[in-house]
């Protein structure tokens, strides 16, 4: 079978998917799963934008009908030497030395293909930690992957885009932390786009009981692309009993030609702890849907910070399901909006019938910095058990004149005062980022955004 580097979205059929699967070197079990997903895709209703989950982001922004599904960069010589921070924050200035991550491991993908070999600190490999690309995981770790990949946390038959993802996924990362192993240094996964087309990347993370992990996912691109790029990313996380996972996701696409639909699903076992931080700064249309399902006594904290500029349309739709008793969750999302930008926060907190003793809170705040910006904050609650403590709050406002006045009365120029107030607005989120390197990195990225605002 000849190498196939891309296929059109139009006319996907069994023959095309089989050829795609052969070109990717899938093992038999995963080829069968792709074909099942294709069959599911044909049965599922393709979202049109009228459905409730798609009322804020037009699914057609993916531009699939005219797109080709690609795997691999057009230009040879993809960067061999990997370093995180490909996004515009590091290239746009503002982040000097010392803000880079020093990861315990790193894996990278570009345009739907792996680039370079994954790197993992030697001591982690010795303790049984695995970090491999998707193809290797499918072949060599089927025992861990097969029962989970696109069937447990994010089942492909649930939703049209998930089915499409399972049919076409061409790159990804597999990360495994054995029982009781605590990975101190963050592990990075970098997803880059350098050209137009559609890509499907998957990240599967298994953290066994009593283990700990910090995962940093970064999305970046150069400022110029040759056309529209659609990135569909699915991350499935399995958080074991009493395990602890910190999960940071950075959208720092340099180009607004990028449309990014992201799905993140975490299944948190008894007394597990999951902490998600979402930071969205770059991209044209970005829709990220983090989701956690909590077992008895587990905890989830969702944090988010977004800064949208002219022309950018962001949607962050989080779902937290308290499936069992005595789980605790919090959500704190904040966004600043400039120009004619748009940001949607959508939260759905579900307390299942048996989930007594649940404790949950949601807070969403939009800071509108331009009269043409459009902010929405929709904190939903679906509560099916009376023994709960659930509250939510949403607010939209502007920079408080009193704060500005106070700072100016202390001799701080107005523009600088404004930046301080905006920075202070995000501080509540940033101060909860416990990895110092990551926090510095975020502060730098935010400073860069604010500097752009003043320059504009």
């Amino acid at each position, binding site marked *: 079978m000849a190498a196939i580097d891309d296929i059109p979205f139009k006319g996907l059929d069994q023959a095309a998917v089989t050829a795609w699967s052969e070109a990717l070197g899938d093992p038999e079990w995963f080829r069968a799963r792709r074909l099942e997903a294709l069959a599911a895709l044909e049965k599922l209703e393709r979202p049109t934008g009228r*459905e*409730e989950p798609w009322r804020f982001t037009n699914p057609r922004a993916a531009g699939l009908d005219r797109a080709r599904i690609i795997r691999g960069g057009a230009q040879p010589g993809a960067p061999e030497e990997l370093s995180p921070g490909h996004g515009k924050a590091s290239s746009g200035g503002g982040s000097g030395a010392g803000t880079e991550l020093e990861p315990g491991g790193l894996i990278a993908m570009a345009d739907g293909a792996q680039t370079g070999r994954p790197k993992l600190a030697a001591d982690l490999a010795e303790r049984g930690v695995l970090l491999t690309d998707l193809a290797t995981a499918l072949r060599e770790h089927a025992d861990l992957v097969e029962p989970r990949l696109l069937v447990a946390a994010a089942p492909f038959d649930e939703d049209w885009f998930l089915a499409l993802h399972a049919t076409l996924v061409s790159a990804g990362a597999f990360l495994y932390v054995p029982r009781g192993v605590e990975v101190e240094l963050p592990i990075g996964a970098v997803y880059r786009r350098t050209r137009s087309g559609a890509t499907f990347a998957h990240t599967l993370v298994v953290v066994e009981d009593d283990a700990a992990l910090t995962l940093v996912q970064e999305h970046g691109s150069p400022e110029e692309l040759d056309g529209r790029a659609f990135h569909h990313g699915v991350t499935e996380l399995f958080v074991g009993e009493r395990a602890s996972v910190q999960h940071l996701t950075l959208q720092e696409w340099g180009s607004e030609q990028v449309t990014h639909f992201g799905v993140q699903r975490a299944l948190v076992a008894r007394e597990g702890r999951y902490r998600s931080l979402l930071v969205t700064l770059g991209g044209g249309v970005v829709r990220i849907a983090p989701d956690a399902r909590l077992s008895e006594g587990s905890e989830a904290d969702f944090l988010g910070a977004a800064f949208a500029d002219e022309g950018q349309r962001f949607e962050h739709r989080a779902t937290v399901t308290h499936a069992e008793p005595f789980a605790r969750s919090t959500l704190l999302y904040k966004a600043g909006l400039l120009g004619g930008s748009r940001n949607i926060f959508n939260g759905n907190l579900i307390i299942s*019938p048996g989930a*007594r003793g649940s404790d949950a809170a949601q807070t969403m705040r*939009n800071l*509108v*910095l*331009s*009269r*043409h*910006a*459009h*902010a*929405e*904050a*929709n*904190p*939903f*609650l*679906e*509560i*099916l*058990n*009376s*023994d*709960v*403590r*659930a*509250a*939510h*709050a*949403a*607010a*939209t*406002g*502007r920079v408080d004149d009193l704060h500005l006045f106070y700072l100016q009365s202390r001799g701080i120029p107005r523009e600088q005062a404004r930046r301080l107030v905006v920075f202070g607005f995000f501080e509540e989120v940033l101060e909860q980022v416990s990895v110092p390197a990551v926090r510095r990195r975020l502060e730098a990225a935010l400073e860069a955004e604010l500097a752009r605002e003043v320059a504009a």
Partner: protein
Amino acid sequence: MVTDARDLTQTPERINPVPENVDLGAYKYGWHDKVTSVFEPKRGLSHEVVEEISQMKNEPDWMRQFRHRALDYFYRRPMPQWGGDLSKIDFDNIFYFLRATEKQAASWDELPADIKSTYDRLGIPEAEKQRLIAGVAAQYESEVVYHKVREDLEAQGVIFLDTDTALREHEDLFREHWATVIPANDNKFAALNSAVWSGGSFIWIPEGVHVEIPLQAYFRINSQNMGQFERTLIIAEPGSSVHYVEGCTAPIYSSDSLHSAVVEIIVKPHAKVRYTTIQNWSNNVYNLVTKRAAAYEGATMEWIDGNIGSKLTMKYPAVLLLGPHAHGEILSVAFAGDGQHQDAGAKLTFAAPETTGQIVSKSISRDGGRTSYRGLIKVEEGAESVKANVRCDALLLDEESRSDTYPYNDVKEEDVTLGHEATVSKIGDDQLFYLQSRGLSEAEAIAMIVRGFIEPISKELPMEYALELNRLVSLQMEGAVG
């Protein structure tokens, strides 16, 4: 979808069989009276039915055309896929028009005895006798059967008529405002109402006139599979004020009825309108209502919305704030028991600078009932210095019940202060213990806590309605302890 209207040769008794051994539960209005319709009722919906309704009412041509256009909109629009379960509504099995009496009565004694006894049992003549109200209208099935307005208000030029009569007697005033706030194509059920509407209230308050005591209307569905589609239009001229109160009941039948009203309110500059509803339909009525007010400069619009009955209610009273300094307020209380889904909420659209608004929602679920708050705060571009506040509190009384909160907050302006807060809780054991230690039974204690929970809303009601709400809540609470 279109079916020919079928002639029914059944007598009303056969149409309205009394199900044997029906458990009326706590619902006090679950009886029905045998009332013979004065014309042969037809089930189903078609252009012929619409034509017949229009001709029977002897309407002007523009209204006839409006109805037909609306029916086309109804056919064209898909069923809503959100909110409650609407799949069980059988549009072909509904009576779209029933006339229960030949002519409207102007004094209570003129009413046919059977209808009079219906309303006597609802307690309406007492309220009127006691002169607690400025005017009263009673709608039975499709048409208003009794109407009375105080002479002094008539002398001031206040118009309070049923909507059909208003169209005949004040056509120009009527046409100027009709369907300006809720167009026929607003949503599927507003389209249905626009096609087959009948009855409802038409109120016009002249400039500067303050109606000091409430105008009231009572709506009653008596027949099985009845659709009630009343249409209310209230116009408050500049500087005037009025409080309108409506109550709704229906008997319990084994198959479902549909109530799909449209209420439009125009609050002109510096006028004030308060609209109070206590909906206590029986638990087999689909209550799908569109209520919207337009508030101009300096005007105040208040909706007080109580949802106690019905199988499914989908109702979101709205205020469009169209002029500077307009103020909108919505107080909503919902109570869902076994088999009930109250999908109620509120909408505020801020389309002018310096406008303000507030929503307070209180919901109580028990016995597997489901309450949903669904709300929208929308701030349009150019609406500077807007202040909006939303507060939703839900009380869950047992493990089987459900409470949802779906607030949408959509802001297209920079200079906005918008807050939304919600809490969900149960009755605290310490609260119960305290009250019981003072000698209250558990049931009394729970009822007292629930009354306290809804107090911010019940205190805004006219006294007899506040009493009624408290009584209904206590009734609903019976057997809540388990």
